[in-house]
């Protein structure tokens, strides 16, 4: 009971995002702008053009290129309004550094509270609406990824989280799976992930 009262006493700490602007965003997880030729280790900047899917936010391009603070660095190719009220996600880690895992987990923190949008994690792909893949493809996880995809019911969405899953980033090759939603970042900011998930479920 005392815990219940403690919870009440703490009050609501959820932010108004996405209606309001995000607060305190770490700059090197947002959109990058600038010009000039730089030595980019992943070729994310070529011919004065920044490709969000390849960027690992290493700051090598600084100060010619600078972060803008815009968190909308994702790409929703397919959205499904069926999931508008309830959107269950099964995350699968096929070879991460742990960063994506942690940022994804922080979506449940009071600041973001993804459940207010009807977004939840599920413990099995059999109940999942979306498969969220993170990390580079590793040999050991190939079979598990395939099985998870097969186990999911239709309709299903595939979400690629982080530059590793989209393009392989710096470390290796991406998983062989076509992404309907691609969330850039290394690791992506929780604001970016949340916004992308809200759009993916058709809101």
């Amino acid at each position, binding site marked *: 009971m*005392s*815990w*219940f009262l*403690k*919870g009440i006493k*703490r009050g609501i*700490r959820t932010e108004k995002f996405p209606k309001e602007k995000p607060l*305190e*965003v*770490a*700059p*090197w*997880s947002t959109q990058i702008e600038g010009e000039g030729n730089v030595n980019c*280790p992943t070729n994310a900047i070529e011919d004065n053009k920044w490709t969000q899917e390849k960027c*690992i*936010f*290493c*700051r090598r391009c600084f100060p010619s290129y600078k972060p803008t603070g815009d968190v909308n660095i994702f790409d929703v190719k397919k959205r499904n309004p069926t999931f508008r009220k309830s959107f269950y996600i*099964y995350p*699968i*880690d*096929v*070879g*991460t*550094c*742990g*960063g*994506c*895992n*942690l*940022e994804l*987990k*922080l979506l*449940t*923190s*009071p*600041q*973001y509270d993804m459940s207010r949008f009807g977004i939840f*994690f*599920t*413990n*099995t792909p059999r109940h999942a609406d979306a498969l969220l893949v993170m*990390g*580079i493809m*590793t*040999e*050991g*996880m190939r079979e*598990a990824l395939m099985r*998870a995809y097969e186990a999911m019911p239709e309709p299903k969405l595939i979400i690629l989280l982080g530059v590793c899953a989209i393009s392989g*980033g*710096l*470390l*290796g090759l991406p998983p062989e799976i076509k992404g309907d939603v691609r969330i850039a970042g*290394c*690791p992506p*900011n*929780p604001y970016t992930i949340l916004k992308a998930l809200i759009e993916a479920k058709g809101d």
Partner: protein
Amino acid sequence: MRRKIGKLGKFCLYNDGYVECEEEIEKRTYSPAYGSFDFVYGPSAGGLMESVRLDIITFGEYIRNVIVNPYYKSRTIKIKGKGINDALLYIERINAPFTASHTIAFLMAIEKALGIEVPYELLLDRIAEIELERIRNNLLVIERLTESAGFQVPMNSLLWLVEKVNRIIGKYFGHRYFFGVNYYGGINVEEGKIKDLEIIEKEFNDLFNSLIESRIFIDRLQGNGIIKDEESIGPVARAANLEYDARNEEIGLPYKDLEFKISTYDSADAFGRFIVRGKEIFESLNMLSRINLKKIEYKGKLAEGKAIGRVESPSGDLAYYVEVSNEGKISEIYLLSPSSVNIKLFSKSMVKNIFTDLPFNWESFGIWISEIGVKFE
């Protein structure tokens, strides 16, 4: 007092040096028994943050043995032959939650190998990084413990704190996981004293004291996963009243000037680890309040050398052995990650416990799978 830390490549690392040694293969045998079976948990299952497979050998309920296979997501990192700063990009991505520890241990090895004198303020900046990382990680570990207990209010409060620490890190270092912060020759940092730490101290103090008083919570931890091992490291060792802490030893970081005090406990169980981690948060906050962040640079040089760099990561000693060729390229690298030591201790401590204890014990070790399966090429 000499203590063994673990296996670093072909060496055995001690707190005062290293010697070449053979891999000792520990064989724990269990014979097949009637009704005993292998309960598979993982590699991909809800409740696991990373991909790992636990084979729980059990009659049902009582655990006879746990075999952990962390090699499902094992990554090959092509680092050899790369320049130091290029190599750092790879080192950063070995384990994001411990990036500061990894990069600083790596840089310290390089600097020692090349005989570079690092400015004192930069060392303080590095301590600030590691301690912030420790606060975040310990908060997360305690959060995972409350999550296993289904304890919603402290769980959410702790997650709020984790995110808060992440934002502080993001604000002062530009990246929430210290990617692109440390480099050979300096540091990217916003200067000044770190603000908002007192909010964390106040909130956590409140939560920590309430959690200690919560009988139903600590009942799950007390007596769970008892391990007192001379070869243990980090909070696991300190919870068993072994004063093992790299911060207390000569590793090249001026912890003594910040009046670092070691935190220990004597129960050697998950509860002890929980207490040690909680106390360390206060200790780290205390040290952080004495640090003024400064942007410092130093001059690198081109030379040949080999050395070991070691820091106390949130889960225990983390060490790199690096050999640099005279072109300034990495020619050999070994990693001793704290999780690789802790994972063995976890299996050992799990025997004779029961199923419901497993998630609590697992989380209490603060293991990150990503840093275990790394192969360097």
